């Protein structure tokens, strides 16, 4: 988004459109000349960046200090310092309390940050690529593909366990990998279907293809669940979100995917701004919307697939966070994507804190928390803001 008198370069060496960019949406508003959206700066303001970093810090501190088990905050802090190389301190925490801090809360907070950031940035990217405010990271069938992949892996694990000599034990450790493959297959199917019949892969066609692929794969998952009903409990456990059992293994699994895909998506923030005026106009400005769309769809899908494969299906993050950022801090993707990474991570880490403390010692599925708190918060933002 460029503001009046602030023609920020869309790509190196090129000028952004002089006119204000309309908010994302498949249909241009009739009153597109409304200048409201144009007053926001295209550049990320330091105060919002500080707010994002502050949100992450608050989420980390709260996520580590609070939980269903009451721990001495000072002890928790010292225990964390003790993790640093060359530092040897006695926190006063018992062995089980130390394990709670270092092996449960810390990896869970880290995974929440990574998953939340990935889903939020992917959501913002999808919204920009498809110019559709309802786009979310699961748009192109990723959730259905990952769900089917996980189901196949779990069913396969049970079948393997029943083979002679298998030792009676399935191997659910490969579930995330198969879920990841399933998600990528789903996106590939959507993209292939989007070009079927000789039509171009327009955003609208891709969206419809995503709906079709989602329905198809969901039906496959449902069939498998009914056919192998003894696995249904494990499948649902996976679908409901896996932060509950997160460990360092999951963090390390996701970390490279999250860092790379978030980095690439944020790197394309200027091109997304240019694309928001439409393909034809973007091309006239020297951009390559089709190529950019392909790259971003692949990267966002890869990041989402990686996140889903280790965390299960967690909704709302990819919708709520980018829109909230857009409404509060600005409509340029140079603002939306970096802040979505920060606020998305903080949001999910805090949602996970709510999941494990609101009804302690019981847990609440994190998807329930993100929906219960995210949706009303989003409505408040909508009602108090003039922008969308």
């Amino acid at each position, binding site marked *: 988004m460029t503001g009046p008198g602030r023609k920020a370069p869309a790509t190196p060496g090129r000028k952004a459109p002089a006119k204000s960019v309309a908010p994302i949406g498949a249909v241009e508003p009739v009153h597109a000349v409304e200048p409201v959206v144009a007053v926001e700066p295209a550049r990320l303001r330091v105060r919002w960046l500080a707010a994002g970093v502050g949100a992450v810090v608050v989420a980390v501190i709260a996520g580590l200090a609070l939980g269903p*088990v009451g721990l001495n905050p000072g002890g928790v802090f010292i225990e964390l310092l003790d993790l640093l190389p060359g530092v040897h301190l006695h926190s006063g925490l018992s062995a089980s309390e130390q394990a709670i801090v270092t092996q*449960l809360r810390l990896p869970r907070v880290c995974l929440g940050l990574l998953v939340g950031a990935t889903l939020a940035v992917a959501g913002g990217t999808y919204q920009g690529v498809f110019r559709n405010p309802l786009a979310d990271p699961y748009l192109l069938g990723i959730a259905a593909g990952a769900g089917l992949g996980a189901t196949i892996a779990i069913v396969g694990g049970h079948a393997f366990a029943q083979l002679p000599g298998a030792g009676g034990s399935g191997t659910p450790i490969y579930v995330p990998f198969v879920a990841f493959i399933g998600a990528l297959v789903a996106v590939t199917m959507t993209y292939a279907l989007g070009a079927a019949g000789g039509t171009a892969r327009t955003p609208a066609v891709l969206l419809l293809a995503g709906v079709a692929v989602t329905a198809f794969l969901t039906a496959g998952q449902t069939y498998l669940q009914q056919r192998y*009903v003894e696995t249904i409990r494990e499948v649902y456990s996976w679908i409901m979100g896996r932060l509950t059992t997160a460990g360092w293994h999951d963090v390390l699994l996701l970390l490279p995917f999250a860092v790379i895909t978030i980095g690439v998506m944020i790197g394309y923030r200027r091109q997304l701004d240019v694309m928001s005026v439409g393909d034809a106009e973007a091309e006239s400005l020297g951009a390559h919307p089709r190529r950019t769309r392909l790259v971003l769809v692949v990267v966002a899908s890869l990041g989402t697939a990686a996140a889903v494969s280790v965390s299960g299906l967690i909704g*709302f993050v990819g919708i709520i966070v980018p829109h909230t950022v857009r409404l509060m801090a600005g409509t340029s993707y140079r603002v939306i994507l970096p802040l979505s990474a920060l606020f998305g991570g903080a949001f999910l880490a805090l949602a996970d804190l709510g999941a494990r403390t609101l009804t*302690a010692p019981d847990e609440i599925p994190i998807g329930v928390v993100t929906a219960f708190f995210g949706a009303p918060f989003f409505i408040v933002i909508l009602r108090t803001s003039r922008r969308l």
Partner: protein
Amino acid sequence: MRRPVPTIASAAVLAVLTLAGVGLAGCGSSGSTSAAPAASASSTEAVTYPVTQDGTTLSAKPTHIISMSPTATDMLFTIGAGSQVIAVDKNSDFFGANAPATTPPADIDAFQPNAETIAAKNPDLVVLSDDTNKIKEALVKLKIPVYMAPAATTIDDTYHQMTALGALTGHPTTAAAAVAAEKKAIGDDLAKLKPRTKPLTFYYELDQTFYSVTSKTFIGSLFGMAKMTNIADAGNASNPYPQLSAEVIIKANPDVIFLADTDCCQQSAVAVAKRPGWSTIGAVKEQQVVPIPDDVASQWGSRVPKLLDTIVTESNAAPTS
């Protein structure tokens, strides 16, 4: 587009599945023994019909029974009505203490029951544990008698269902003997229980995301009979099947861990020990992680004494804390 928001529904499904134990009981451990007496499949008892039990009235002795519940199947064979059973649901794999050489076909889907499929077998009694998809109403419309044997919440529910099925199927005496034998076996189990100055604490795991049971459940009540303290009781009293937080379990430091997810979810003592932070738990350090076959853990039929015997044995074996 599929959104994961309906996790509430998913949670409800999981809770219902977990609660009822239906269908999850189908895997493993066929051929286990029960404490119930051996019942003759050909035994005949003089019973005057019509007979009414819990709202179900039969005008004649049923000879074409369909069981839609693994526990009901167990009970029917235990009370001597096995020869009258013509079909069972796909998850029924335990046919009482003395399983017949030829068991009825297990070809009915209890999760997606179809009234036409059931009616095609011309049953004169259908035993259900859940009214899935309003199957009871559909069968009643087809003039097929239905007996509901829902998941027991107390051991008395088990005795009541066995007695009622005995009356309906023409085996009241055998059913009474089976109930008496089960009561005696449970009494014998509890008599073996070693007294402790401090009750053992335990964690009962339904799945690897830490769903558990409180003492308000049937399975939870068995541990209460064995004088053990359930760490899940500390939570929300209104939820009998809570999902505990891992850190709560670690902090509670249970003396014994019972795994009821060995078949469904491939959990084991080794897998538990590998979980982050769980090596600090006393039950893991003392190797007091006890696997229980999923079906034994989720049924309320003739194998309850066997389950209680496992609980008592592990309680006696656990070191004094």
